[in-house]
């Protein structure tokens, strides 16, 4: 900061020093304790899930993650208990990735449209609707998926299979196209699109207005301004929003439960009518589980918890970094 001769520097604001007395210290301690509950709660969730399922990890070790069976034993030891979540773990990743791949272009397009193409009136309406859409319970998405969307999903699957059936990804063994990872992925995509769209829109709206205007002044088209200023500026925020959406998709229970034929087998053919994810496994087996099986379910929950926690921590730090500069 250089000071030109005509101007006087405004004095820096004095740092306020507060001396805390006893009442203040008590107040601060209470507030700190309250603020730390979320921290403690997160720790407790991890600890309790781990302690309750420690026996499973102890008994089965890494086989719990890699094995591919979920068989409840007969109790007398003739058929041993065999619990592992391999197919469900890969199923979780598969369905979430389908959802993410499908929703990314839509979300970016939607955010750009709301922020740069819509008229001011339309923009206001769409922003409100977007907030509302992010609050629709996933159960209603599931219901809509089962009753309304699945017939479209089956038709598209049939079409994809007849055109691209030679791809290993699009092969099927049985020509039943409903309740496949693809259909579930489509519904999950429509579930996470509002989340990614509203984060992206928020990031795009922070683009410095003068930079965009400069582009226009230099004769750029709208797309030119978006490509050279908006997208580079908002890139990390969009990635963060995508990670948030991914975290949501990884932990989704009811929509997947209602839309996917849960079968315990490794399956990477997205149009095949079988699959599953960890959360829907827990919902499916919880009601009739034996005590040992319950522990296995808690262990599965612990794995899911760790998975989403990692994704969300990365997402939170990216979003935090890209929206901090105002």
């Amino acid at each position, binding site marked *: 900061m250089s000071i030109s001769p005509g101007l006087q520097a405004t004095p820096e604001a004095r740092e306020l020093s507060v001396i805390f007395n006893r009442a203040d210290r008590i107040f601060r301690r209470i507030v700190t304790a309250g603020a730390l509950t979320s921290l403690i*709660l997160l720790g407790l969730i991890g600890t309790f899930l781990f302690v309750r399922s420690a026996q499973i990890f102890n008994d089965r070790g890494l086989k719990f993650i890699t094995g591919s069976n979920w068989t409840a034993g007969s109790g007398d030891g003739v058929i041993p208990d065999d619990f592992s979540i391999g197919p469900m773990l890969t199923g979780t990743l598969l369905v979430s990735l389908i959802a993410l791949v499908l929703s990314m272009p839509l979300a970016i397009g939607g955010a750009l449209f709301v922020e740069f*193409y819509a008229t001011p009136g339309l923009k206001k309406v769409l922003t409100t609707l977007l907030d509302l859409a992010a609050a629709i319970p996933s159960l209603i998405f599931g219901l809509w998926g089962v009753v309304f969307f699945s017939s479209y999903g089956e038709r598209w699957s049939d079409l994809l299979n007849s055109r691209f059936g030679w791809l290993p990804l699009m092969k099927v063994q049985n020509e039943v196209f409903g309740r496949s990872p693809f259909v579930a992925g489509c519904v999950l995509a429509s579930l996470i699109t509002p989340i990614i769209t509203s984060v992206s829109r928020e990031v795009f709206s922070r683009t410095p207005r003068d930079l965009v205007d400069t582009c226009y002044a230099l004769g750029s088209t709208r797309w030119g301004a978006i490509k050279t200023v908006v997208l580079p500026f908002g890139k990390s925020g969009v990635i963060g929003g995508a990670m948030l959406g991914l975290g949501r998709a990884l932990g989704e229970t009811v929509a997947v439960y209602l839309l996917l034929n849960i079968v315990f087998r490794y399956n990477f053919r997205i149009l095949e009518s079988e699959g599953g994810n960890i959360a829907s496994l827990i919902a499916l087996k919880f009601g009739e589980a034996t005590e040992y099986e319950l522990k296995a379910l808690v262990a599965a929950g612990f794995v899911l918890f760790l998975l989403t926690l990692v994704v969300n921590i990365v997402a939170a730090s990216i979003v935090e970094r890209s929206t901090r500069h105002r």
Partner: protein
Amino acid sequence: MSTIIAPAEKTEVVPEPITPWKPSQKTKSVSIIVFLASLFLSAAIVLLTGLAGIDGFGLALFCVVIVVTTVRNLRSNQKSRKDAFVGVFVASAAMLAFFPWMSIFASVIVKGVRGLQPNFLVENMQFTTPDDELNMGGAAHAVIGSMLMVSIAAAITLPLGILSGVYLTEIRGRLTFLVRFVVQSMSGVPSIVAGLFVYTTFVDYTSKFSGMAGALALAVLMLPTVARTAEEVLKLVPDDLRSASYALGARQWRTSLMVVLPTVRSGLMTAAILGVARVIGETAPLLLTSLSNNSFIFNPLGGPIGSLPTYIFGLLQIGTENSINRAWTGSLVLLILVLVLFTTARYVGGKDKR
């Protein structure tokens, strides 16, 4: 900048800035007519060829618009041609992105209205099977159960959320970054994991599924939303207010409790309402903690309790025509609740800024 303009000039009428780059009225109306023509053309394609349904119509429209854009931009330079095509792609992506939830709103309203009869809001399912006609039985027990659990959850999380908001904006201790970070990453805890956590602790300890357990699971999911909104709201309080309070000799605790918090009272209400809207439709945690029930339960510790999401979920699994219709009506009630909560939050939150 403002000092350059002399006071006398200020009174003069400022001319509207001209915007030569904006499309003229003529081009606008031509665009609208062309778009309407494309709509008709694609409708004709759907009627006359193999393409069918809404998806077929969308595809036809997209192709027609692409062709029309190509023709209209034959004489323009490459840059604006590219711009026009990107515009088409962005608009189609936006339409595709907005279509699912438009369709959800529409189908929930259309299919749910049929079952929305007075009995749906006053009766329970104790003496009615899901397959009975829609003029028998209702979801009153589920609404009451949901309200009960959500209110308990709100009563637990609101103070905690406010405290963490106050910590982040007033105290600003050493743990500020950590607390904010934990709240952020906690908002991503899958709902079923919250259910499992309460199951392994509270349900195990009381050896009973109950509304209280459901409320605790919902509270875990609600806390991040409430804490974050509270922080956002408290950030809006101007520092002048705090300085004024300190200047009058108030201590930090008095400043926070009697100056800062009262100014954002309605904002904190918004935080609570948004938290409620976030969890009222959660199904998965309730499947593990409160189960479901067909009769009126008012005691949060008195065993399994009905709730709107588990009611819908149960009906969906039965899968007969009437039960699915009931599920749609339940979804309509749930959606209306979310809508009302959202509108209230906006209305209450808007008051602060004025």
